[in-house]
């Protein structure tokens, strides 16, 4: 029975369970809903949940485990000498699965009878040709071991699917019957349903957290592999970034970190004053009309994909800066060799960060209570004195938090740097030089055609983990500052 049918039967049972549970509970109270412990629909929901949740759980676990268990038992049938030196057992097993699927298709099309498919011999039939007829292409002729493994794979799968259907239906019917019997007027259905909803919410929250842990772990293992192949002292304390796919690379994070920090600093230098002043204007001076169109307009900037900012850097800002500071430029200084530079990427990234800083700061400034402003104005302070001496000090922790969040955005930014800053890793204090950052090197190391197990590729994971730790540290610091110094207003 296909999975779709199983799910449809389950859903029908659930719907039926809701109606019957509700009706049975009402009947136990002689139709008077006020005599029930819970509202009638809670009884229905209880039956529906008791039918659905356990059976669905069994279904999911079965679907996850069955292929693993069948693979394990079938792979014993492949003798080790069958596996050629240049492939692995996994590749042979994927052949087995492919043949098994091909037989399934052939049987379903009526090209082959179920009996035939189980008694085929490679000596007697050209299986590759016969499967080719039904549209299943095989890479090579089927060997007898693979065919018998495929036949047993099919048998096990069929038995497994049949078993799954029966077990899932049994669990669903058991849950249905048990909860239906429970649905009497004394039963506390509301409490059970509320607990069910609570566990659903907890499940969602823990999925998000577990995913984060999974991401970190996957990077951690590759990073450990990398440090097995490459000296950690060179990574953390070396001074050259020179990946070489023939080996003997120098892979130090420091030049990349310097580029990252330099570009982020320039970006913050642009974004913090502009964003903060914009926030002050919007929250303290602008009338409701100006505010109602200026604030969304500013926040549109936050929705622009960073690749578009990258284009802006590549096409407009870079050539403009080169026209000013480059060779034969308007200022006649020829400081800049090309259009890509730290300054180009920093300026454009700063523009990208303005809405972050301004929007967060605006919310924080608005959270400063009006009574503070009244108190200051009531003493004869002007509006700018009030903002400078009362509102901003009160909002400062939040503003610092906003700036740190913007910083972690800047540190993690990739596309603007790729298109605006160039690709040369070096230590230089000259803002007109090309430089590169951690994120862009991760991309270039992983997208090269190097061997995946070489240190030149694995270094990407070490860089990624370092970046993760860096931004995590910044975010923790931001949260700490905001929590510690936040004024608690009534």
């Amino acid at each position, binding site marked *: 029975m296909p999975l779709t049918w199983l799910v449809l039967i389950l859903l029908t049972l659930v719907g039926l369970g809701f109606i019957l549970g509700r009706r049975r509970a009402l009947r136990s109270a002689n139709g008077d809903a006020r005599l029930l412990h819970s509202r009638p629909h809670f009884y229905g929901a209880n039956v529906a949940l008791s039918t659905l949740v356990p059976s669905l759980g069994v279904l999911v676990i079965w679907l996850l485990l069955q292929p693993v268990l069948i693979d394990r038992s079938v792979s014993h049938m492949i003798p080790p000498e069958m596996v050629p030196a240049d492939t692995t057992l996994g590749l042979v097993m994927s052949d087995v699965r492919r043949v098994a699927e091909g037989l399934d298709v052939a049987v379903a099309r009526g090209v082959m009878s179920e009996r035939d498919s189980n008694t085929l011999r490679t000596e007697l039939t050209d299986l590759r040709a016969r499967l080719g007829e039904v549209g299943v292409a095989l890479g090579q002729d089927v060997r007898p071991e693979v065919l018998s493994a495929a036949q047993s794979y099919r048998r096990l799968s069929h038995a497994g699917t049949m078993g799954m259907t029966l077990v899932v239906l049994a669990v669903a019917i058991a849950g249905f019957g048990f909860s239906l019997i429970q649905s009497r007027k004394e039963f506390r259905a509301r409490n059970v349903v509320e607990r069910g909803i609570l566990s659903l919410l907890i499940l969602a929250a823990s999925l998000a957290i577990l995913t984060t842990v999974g991401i970190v772990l996957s990077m951690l293992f590759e990073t450990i592999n990398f440090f097995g192949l490459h000296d950690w002292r060179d990574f953390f304390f070396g001074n050259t970034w020179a990946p070489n796919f023939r080996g003997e690379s120098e892979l130090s994070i420091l030049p990349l970190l310097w580029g990252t920090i330099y570009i982020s600093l320039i970006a913050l230098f642009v974004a913090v004053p502009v964003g903060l002043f914009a926030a002050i204007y919007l929250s303290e001076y602008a009338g*409701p009309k100006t505010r109602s169109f200026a604030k969304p307009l500013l926040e549109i900037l936050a929705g622009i994909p960073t690749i578009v900012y990258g284009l802006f850097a590549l096409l407009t800002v870079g050539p403009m800066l080169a026209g000013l500071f480059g060779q034969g430029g308007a200022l006649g200084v020829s400081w800049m060799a090309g259009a890509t530079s730290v300054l180009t990427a920093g300026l454009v990234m700063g523009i990208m960060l303005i809405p972050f800083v301004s929007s967060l700061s605006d919310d924080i400034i608005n959270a400063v*209570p009006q009574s503070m402003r009244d*108190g200051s104005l009531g003493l*004869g302070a002007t509006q700018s004195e009030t903002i400078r001496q009362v509102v901003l000090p009160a909002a400062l922790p939040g503003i610092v938090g906003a700036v740190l969040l913007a910083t972690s955005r800047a540190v993690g930014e990739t596309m603007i740097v790729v298109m605006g800053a160039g690709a040369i890793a070096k230590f230089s204090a000259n803002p007109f030089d090309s430089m590169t950052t951690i994120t862009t090197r991760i991309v270039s190391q992983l997208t090269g055609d190097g061997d995946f197990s070489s240190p030149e590729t694995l270094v990407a994971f070490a860089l990624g983990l370092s970046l993760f730790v860096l931004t995590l540290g910044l975010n923790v610091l931001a949260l700490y500052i905001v929590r510690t110094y936040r004024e608690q207003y009534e």
Partner: protein
Amino acid sequence: MFDAPTIGSTVELQDSKITASGVHVFYGDTHAIKDVNVNIAAKTVTAFIGPSGCGKSTFLRCLNRMNDTIDTCRVEGNIHLDGEDIYDRRVDPVQLRAKVGMVFQKPNPFPKSIYDNVAYGARIHGLARNKSELDAIVEKALRRAALWGEVKDRLGAPGTGLSGGQQQRLCIARAVATEPEVLLMDEPCSALDPIATAQVEELIDDLRTRFSVVIVTHSMQQAARVSQKTAFFHLGHLVEFGDTPTIFTNPSDERTESYITGRIG
């Protein structure tokens, strides 16, 4: 204030600090204050009483133009301080508020140290030439607000860390430190316990020797204890204004009597 001579100041205003005549206040379409006429005398405590929503706080906020900060608010009529129209276009509300200080219903110390809270007004108006003068101003204001003894050893501590009553006295010290001529108090004791209330009331009585004090209060006992003049507001009208003993013992208006005896409100 502006220096130009003012036409219209008359002899009868001599001992009036603030004269309001024909004052109307609108919040958008709501007519909150209807034709209020009142004279606030120098060196007296004037109490505004009345049920909630009767407009007494709104009227108080007109006296130092705090209503300017509310976009929808519109004030009509004349309010004169020492014979000068405070709603004249040439008057800078910032300078007006330096002369007419305000203490709010809820204590609102700034998130700064106790010292900086009190020194705030003196600093922005440049009242002190050096640090020792500023110290003297802060000490004098805190002494007047009866807070000096409690905080003199921790002037650097944050003002928000004080208890509610201390915070309110800090706000009073802050207002007093700028040497205003009139002090407006909007229910200054509503968030305080009886002991702190008694301290603030004692303070108000002291302040009368130097300033005009206008106090909005919900407590009729408080109005009777601290004020010399009382104004009764009802539904945006000034119903009755006179000497406090007269208002409380022999009110001329029926509504005043009903409010004082607790039948409306």
